[in-house]
Structures are given as structure tokens and as C-alpha cells.
């Protein structure tokens, strides 16, 4: 697995050389600026708003990384034909796919970690400067460990999105891959509605189709516990474990599909 590791580290290096660090700087600046403004307003809601904003931004920037960097790095390798050189080395196509995927997941992990650390940093600042009377009004502690659960699940969700992007970029153009991945991200968040479709429509075939799609399409609502965490609701461990298990199974199928396609295609 030495080869897989080398390919993965190369992906990470390329993403660092690409634009990923700039998105992080953008995120940090945005967070700092917002917290400064909120500090001026002192509504007693600042910690909640920062958490809301921070998690939403982590998720959104992570999505940006997963889609654009993920698709970019894989399809660029094929379109610009650097894959010719890589595949002439003692490397199998399966190792290329696995290496690319793990490298992208590593990139996500590092970027999300940095963003979460920045979020905790801003929250620590507020905790430090706020009056005990203000702190008493907070629904959740500023440095709530539950934020780790929320951001951990964001990471798992994005690992799944990356696997989707990987499948698409093994056979279609970057633009189409991005559109398809983004489409599935949106659909995945409204997926739960498909389950209730049979209550809305009378037509049986349509209901069956909706039910089939429900099981086939990724159910991304499982990973979204942002609101619960921000408002201090308990997230049961079983929900977390089943979400992670679901993601692992889904990712395994997607990566296997990518390998299957990649092993058979011509690099023209």
C-alpha cells in the first residue's frame, strides 16, 4: 500500500499548491469579521450565531473542496494526460483510484480540522471577554464538545460527496461531474421527502419509483446535526454510529464502482 500512500500524499500536496489555502483564509477572515460585528451588537445570541455560521461555513467550504478540488484533481490527471506517466509506473489502476480518494479525504480532514480549530478559537475569545452574566444566558457552553460531533459528521458527509465526485469524474467531464455531484448533494438533503411521497401521490408506480430512489440516493440528512448541536439538543450515539456506518457502506460501493469503471476505460 506504499504506492497508494504516495499517490494520496501527492494529491494532498497538489491541493495545498492549488487554491485550497485561500478558501481557508477567506473562511477565517469571514469568521473574525462577523464575530467582531457581533461583539459590537451584544445581543446575548452571539455564541449561537457564531456556531451556526461557523458550522454552515465549514460545511459549505468543505463542499467546495470536495467538488472542485476532488473533481479537478482526478479529471485533470486524465484530461491533461499526466495519467499516462503515472500508469507507466508499477501502479495499478485500482491503486490510482484508492490513492486519489484517500488523498482527497486527507485534504478534507486537514481543511475541516483547521476550520473547526478557527471556530473554537473565536468561541474561546468570546468566552474570555464575556461577562458571567452574559454567559449565563447562553443555551450551550461556548467551547461545547458537541461541536466536534457536528463537524465530524460534516466530514463524513463530505467524504461521501467526494466518493460521488470520484465516480462521476472517472467517466464524465469535470463540468458534468460537478453538476451531477452538486445535484445529488441537493437531492440528498431532501431525500427524506421521497419516503413520504406515497402519502402525497396516488399513482403507485410513482410511489414505488420514489421509494426506490429513496433507497438508492444518498440520504444526507443523517449527517446534519448542526441545528441540534447549536441549540443544545442531545445527539444520540446510536444516530452517530448508524450515520457513520451508512456512510462507510455507501462510500465502499462508490469507490468500488469507480475502480470498476477506471479499470476498464481507455485513456484516449
Amino acid at each position, binding site marked *: 500500500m506504499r504506492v497508494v500512500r504516495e499517490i494520496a500524499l501527492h494529491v494532498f*500536496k497538489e491541493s495545498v499548491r492549488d487554491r485550497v489555502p485561500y478558501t481557508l483564509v477567506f473562511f477565517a477572515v469571514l469568521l473574525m469579521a462577523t464575530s467582531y460585528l457581533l461583539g459590537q451588537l451584544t445581543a446575548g445570541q452571539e455564541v449561537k450565531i457564531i456556531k451556526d455560521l461557523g458550522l454552515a461555513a465549514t460545511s459549505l467550504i468543505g463542499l467546495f473542496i470536495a467538488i472542485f478540488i476532488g473533481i479537478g484533481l482526478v479529471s485533470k490527471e486524465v484530461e491533461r494526460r499526466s495519467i499516462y506517466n503515472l500508469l*507507466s509506473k508499477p501502479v495499478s489502476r485500482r491503486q490510482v483510484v484508492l490513492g486519489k480518494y484517500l488523498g482527497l479525504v486527507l485534504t478534507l480532514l486537514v481543511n475541516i480540522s483547521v476550520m473547526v480549530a478557527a471556530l473554537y478559537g473565536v468561541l474561546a475569545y468570546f468566552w474570555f471577554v464575556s461577562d458571567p452574566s452574559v454567559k449565563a444566558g447562553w443555551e450551550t457552553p461556548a467551547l461545547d464538545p458537541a461541536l466536534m460531533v457536528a463537524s465530524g459528521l460534516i466530514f463524513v458527509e463530505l467524504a461521501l460527496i467526494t466518493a460521488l465526485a470520484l465516480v462521476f469524474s472517472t467517466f464524465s467531464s469535470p463540468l458534468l461531474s460537478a453538476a451531477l455531484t452538486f445535484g445529488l448533494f441537493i437531492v440528498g438533503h431532501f431525500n427524506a421527502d421521497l419516503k413520504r411521497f406515497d402519502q402525497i401521490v396516488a399513482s403507485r408506480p410513482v410511489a414505488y419509483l420514489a421509494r426506490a430512489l429513496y433507497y438508492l440516493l444518498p440520504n444526507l440528512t443523517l449527517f446534519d446535526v448542526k441545528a441540534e448541536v447549536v441549540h443544545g439538543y442531545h445527539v444520540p450515539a446510536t444516530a452517530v454510529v448508524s450515520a457513520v456506518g451508512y456512510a462507510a457502506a455507501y462510500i465502499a460501493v462508490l469507490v468500488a464502482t469507480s475502480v470498476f469503471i477506471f479499470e476498464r476505460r481507455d485513456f484516449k
Partner: protein
Amino acid sequence: MPAIRTEALTKDYSTGFWRPRPSRALENLTLEIAPGEIFGFLGPNGAGKTTTLKLLMQLIFPTSGRAEILGRPVGDVGVKRRLGYLPENPYFYDNLTAEELLVYYARVFGHHGSEAARRAGELLDLVGIGGERALQLRKFSKGMLQRIGLAQALLNDPDVVFLDEPMSGLDPLGRRDVRELILRLRERGCTVFFSSHILSDAESLCSRVAILSAGRLIATGTVSELLAFGVGGWELVMTNLAAATVARLGLRIARATEIAEGHYALELPIDAAPDGLLRELTAAGAALVSLNPIRPTLEDVFIKKVGGARERATFHHGAHRDHREKT
């Protein structure tokens, strides 16, 4: 055991998005290349050279037929350890430096830390871009990328090297460097399979060549075997020769070219003994400048064979085949 063997290798590309039709890029290629050979794979643009190399590297899969390298089917990861490949117009990662790129590939080959760096440095020096090792590849010219491509192909001291148009994009000095590099590989016993549409490259380097046209193998053999096909003759250059005298020679010469006033280059067919004519012309007051045999170049053979193959193809299959041959 041959170093490279192909058996009726055939490749169809499907072209056209809405109504895909197969278009044949390579037809029934059967070749055998012995270890240590420098094999020139020649043909005009669009002949199918790159297609063949990509089949040998298993970047594409054959429609039918098979190929082996070092006794193993193509694509075998173990055999790839002993191969080198320079693609046509190689491209790498814009954001890496030349050194980082080679270190990456060296690590993929299993070299570690400082050893990978040492190996990368050696190869950059070998291909003559040691001075640019810290430069990002986006800033490389085509010729420099070609050299990087050679460096990565030789990183593992390969036993078999595939070079797709290795001279393209290089200046005359660069071409000389590549020629010397190939000769050094030959001394090491390395098998070199290279494609080219520039024939002089092959003429000075190859032990054997194959000529491909429109996806078909039309000739194969040693350079001297192929040259034996060519038309020979003599070139007689004389000065102080009157135009009227030249005109009187008629069909005894194949061609007369006036180089300067009273100064002619005369081409004699191979069966015409030049001494008789020389005596006649000297008697008429002309003076000899030079007399040389005309050796056919590989280019002559190439033009003759490829031209012939095209005519036959057009004759047999109609003109519709011609759109495939981008020249």
C-alpha cells in the same frame, strides 16, 4: 524470449457522439522485437504509432489481438517495474517543481527519502536540466518538458523503453542529446522502441525499423534491407559544359540541373556506367567537379512505400479512407 511481441493487434476508436462508428486506427499489427534492439517505429502522422504505444502501455485496450512485454501480458504491474515510457507531448503537474515530480515518481518506484532525491537529481543532470530543478513545471518550455519526460522514463534504469516521438519539440542540440542518450541505453543492453516521423533519427540509430501507414504495417526490416529496395544511381557534377551538349544527352541521363552558368549536376541511372559519359564530356571540353553514388535515404523508401500503400488503399477501399489520414 522477445522483449516485445504483438500478435494481430487491432484497435478501433469509436468516433461521433450521437452515432458512434468504429474507426480503425491499427490493423493486425504483428511484431517481434528482440532484447537489446533499437527499434524505430516509423510512419506519417495518424499512422497509428501512438495508438500502438498506448496499447503496449495498456492505456487503451485492444479491440482484438494481444501484446506481451518481457514475456508477460501488457499491463502487468511487475513488468512495469522494468519499463520506461515517454508519452507523446508529455504533461505533468503544473504546481510541482521538476525535482518534486521526479522524487514523487522515484517514491512510487519504491525509493525512499534521500535515495529518491539523489536519483531525481541524477536524472535531471542526465537530461540536462539540473539547473532548473527548483522551477515549477508550469514555467517549462515544450523542449524542457520533453527532457523531464525522458528523465521520468529512465528513473528506474529500465530494461525496455518506449519513446513516442522523443525528438519532437527539441532543438538540434536537444536532438543530439537524445540520440546520445539512446546510444548509451543500447550500450547498457536496454531495448528501445521509439516512434518517429523524422526518418533521419531512425537511420542513424536503429537496428531495425517498421513502417506503418494508415494503421497497417507496410514494411519491416533492418535499415540496410529497406535501403536495398531504393533506387540508386550516380550524381556527376561538371563545369564548363555547354547547354547544347547537355541537351544532346537525352535519355542517357535521368535529370540535369544547372547549378550555375555552365555548371551542371547530372543524375545517371544505376545501370549507366559513368566513366563512358565522363570521357565523352571531358572530350567536349568539360571539367569534372565530382562523381558520387546516389544512396537512397530511408526517406526515399518511406515516401515510396507509404505513397504506394495509400494508392492501393484508395484503389481497394475507395477514397473514403483518406479522411483518417491527418497529415
